[in-house]
């Protein structure tokens, strides 16, 4: 018996050819709709306008970074920010990036270069995708700008190293001078026992020792400079501008600067020491003058060392500042304000509920009447098909209207649905969608023969409609042809209008095309239904 029941059920199920056909194409349509609704799987390659008011290498770096980013697809555009924002407002582009006039000047002057990015926040998905992606722009362009900055640093290092070499040379000279002075003092000591050369000799010796020390520390400084370059190479190699690496560089620069500053101080002390040496007055052969002269020349050499040292320190100062400041910053503006995911989905969900209910109810009603034969019987009475249509239509409008109000208020009361524009306009759009859905539902009912067929056909229309109507998947990521297919469902237009009203706060006059489309979706199926109804035969 079980077998018999099985066969009977199968026979019954498979006897409805229309149902089978729909059931057969349904998975195909679903998969194509799903697959083509998200091309790449990720939400990226979003149209972006880049306005460069700076026109420098640095701004070009930012533009390049935008082009290379997989999130932004810069489009050809020439115009002002205001022009660009009009496109953004209509969601024709998802972001506008503005590089201001003084961008590179600021960076060069160790002031943060600020880029402005306006992101269309009427679409939660593209918004959150781009909002995260701007980091990528900063990273990429900073890399290049940092390269330039680092190039400067490298140059600086080379000159510093050379200056240190110069200092070392001078130190060598001083040493020779000091040696000479030492020798001379020995001679003098022999010739004139009256002169106390020991004190001078001691200070010269301690000077020489100090020089030796200084040279060692200069060598260290040179090594430290090489070390910076090494760190910088690291930064480049690992493609990162991480905070800790920055800190290392800054630490190194600071160490070098301190080293040089110390050296300068030492040099200062030495100069003071030299000043304090009392050569005394030994007239024979102007000895004291000669010694003074020598000391003066040593002193002068120290002065120039000090000068060089200060210049190194100064440049390192600037470098450190470059590194310390945040070279680039992006100021993000959510163009339609912050948005919650539910706010974004709200339009689609409302449309879906209205579409589904308003489509299903009249379709099932008419098919039920067909199955009950009452429609045929009614068609033998003189009542006009127009009246039959409007009778049904009016009741379903009323039904859908209250259903819609109810849904809307639940969404607002419980989930705090954001409605920036007028709620009356939201109601109007949803009512128009209900009209269109009822018309389509009636039209379907005049084409479909059995309840079973209707029950597979309605989801076949509603679910893909939801998927392609831009309520869920942004149009940006849908296959091109799918965006044309999307015009086949009124939900696309209602979603567009609802999004504009609820999120962007648009007025009705700004969504007129959507309204016209919804009206067309009401009138065309309505006419087809009436024609079909008149032709309806057993």
């Amino acid at each position, binding site marked *: 018996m079980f077998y018999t029941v099985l066969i009977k059920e199968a026979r019954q199920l498979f006897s409805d050819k229309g149902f089978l056909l729909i059931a057969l194409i349904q998975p195909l349509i679903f998969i194509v709709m799903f697959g083509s609704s998200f091309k790449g799987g990720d939400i990226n390659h979003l149209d972006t306008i880049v306005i460069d008011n700076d026109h420098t290498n640095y701004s070009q770096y930012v533009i390049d970074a935008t082009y290379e980013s997989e999130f932004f697809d810069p489009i050809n555009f020439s115009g002002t920010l205001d022009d660009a924002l009009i496109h953004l407002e209509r969601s024709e582009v998802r972001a506008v990036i503005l590089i201001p006039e003084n961008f590179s000047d600021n960076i060069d002057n160790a002031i943060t270069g600020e880029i402005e990015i306006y992101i269309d926040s009427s679409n939660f998905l593209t918004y959150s995708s781009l909002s995260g992606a701007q980091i990528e722009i900063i990273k990429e362009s900073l890399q290049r700008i940092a390269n330039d900055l680092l190039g400067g640093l490298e140059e600086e290092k080379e000159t510093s190293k050379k200056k240190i070499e110069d200092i070392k040379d001078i130190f060598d000279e001083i040493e020779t001078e000091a040696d000479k002075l030492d020798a001379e003092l020995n001679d003098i000591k022999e010739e004139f026992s009256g002169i106390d050369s020991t004190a001078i000799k001691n200070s010269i010796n301690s000077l020489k020792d100090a020089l030796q020390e200084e040279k060692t520390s200069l060598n260290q400084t040179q090594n430290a400079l090489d070390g910076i370059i090494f760190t910088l190479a690291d930064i480049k190699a690992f493609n990162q501008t991480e905070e800790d690496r920055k800190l290392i560089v800054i630490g190194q620069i600071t160490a070098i600067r301190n080293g040089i500053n110390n050296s300068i101080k030492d040099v200062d002390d030495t100069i003071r020491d030299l000043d304090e040496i009392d050569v005394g007055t030994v007239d024979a052969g102007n000895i004291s003058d000669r010694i003074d002269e020598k000391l003066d020349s040593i002193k002068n050499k120290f002065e120039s060392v000090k000068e060089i040292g200060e210049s190194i320190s100064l440049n390192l100062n600037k470098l450190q500042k470059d590194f310390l400041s945040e070279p680039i910053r992006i100021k993000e503006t959510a163009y339609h304000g912050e948005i919650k995911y539910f706010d974004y989905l709200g339009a689609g969900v409302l449309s879906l509920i209205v579409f589904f209910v308003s489509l299903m109810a009249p379709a099932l009603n008419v098919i039920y009447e067909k199955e*009950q034969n009452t429609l045929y019987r009614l068609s*033998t*009475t*003189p*009542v006009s098909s127009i009246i039959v249509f409007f009778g049904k239509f009016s009741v379903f409008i009323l039904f859908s209207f209250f259903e819609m109000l109810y849904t809307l208020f639940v969404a607002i009361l419980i989930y705090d649905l954001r409605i920036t524009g007028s709620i009356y306009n939201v109601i109007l759009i949803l009512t128009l969608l209900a009209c269109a859905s009822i018309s389509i539902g009636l039209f379907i009912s005049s084409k479909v023969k059995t309840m079973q067929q209707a029950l597979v056909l309605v989801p076949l229309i509603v679910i893909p409609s939801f998927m392609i109507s831009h309520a869920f998947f942004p149009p940006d990521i849908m296959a091109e042809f799918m965006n044309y297919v999307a015009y086949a469902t009124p939900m696309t237009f209602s979603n567009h209008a609802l999004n504009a009203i609820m999120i962007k706060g648009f007025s009705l006059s700004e969504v007129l095309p959507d309204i016209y489309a919804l009206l067309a979706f009401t009138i065309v199926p309505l006419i087809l239904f009436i024609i079909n109804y008149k032709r309806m035969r*057993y």
Partner: protein
Amino acid sequence: MGDAVKVVNISKKYKGVVALDHVSLTIKKNSIFGLLGSNGAGKSTLLHIIIGLLNPNEGDVYVLDEKINKGFSKNLKNKVAIVPQKLSLYEELTIFENLYFFAKSYGLPRKEVLEKIEGLKNILRLGDLHRKVKNLSGGYQRRTSLAVGLIGSPEILILDEATVGIDLETKKIINELLLSLKEHMTVITTTHSLEEAEAICDYVYFLHKGKKVLEGTLQDIIKKYSAENSGDIHIVFKDEEAAKKIFDLFGETKILRMEGNKLYLVFFSGQYSANVLTNFLNKIKGYEKDIVDISIHKPNLEEIMLQLIKSD
């Protein structure tokens, strides 16, 4: 002037099935026209074509002298009503609501509608009008459907097995009603019940497998077939033995048949029949006491039709 319905040479095919095969007929005004035929003969199909719910594949249909072209005109919809074979009522609504709705669809004013509903309620014994149709018994559902057919006071009323499942008493009332309405109305009715056709039909049309087999007034048909064909004399004997005795007197013959304690003597019209009858009467002389009953059976419509179908 004119006929109620004129059907000229229409054919209707469904996938693989020829439901109607070149059917022509004329229905006179103010008559009750019986469309007869076994299941699947094409009766419903023909009626749906007449009322414009179905388009024939070929042929023309005229209703009240108006040619039917893709459905009825509003004028005809006002004048022709059908009580379909399938229930065709709003089952979620009450009897009253159904009647009221259909009455309104004929554009009748409320007062008139209420009067009519009251009238039909009484004639058809609809009982409590505020019961939902889906909860009614089958017979009451049919009565309601019939009431809906009558509510617009049509000039032509098409009944597709309208009285199936209705009890005999009500059926009788309905038949009387139809007969009384004949003055203003043409009734086209299909039925398997030949008895019923015999009771009310002025004219019958017999379809078999989409083709006309027979048509004419009831009297003509019966006269014709009883003249052309045969009648039976049924002789009932007190027991089988007695019947056998008489049967054996005749030997092998086609005109006499025995079934249990009954003998059936077929007689034909004309001279031959007279000979057979006298011969038979002579032979049973002396056996009168063995005979319980003798009756003469003239063919009724049913038998004529069964015969016609068999000969097909």
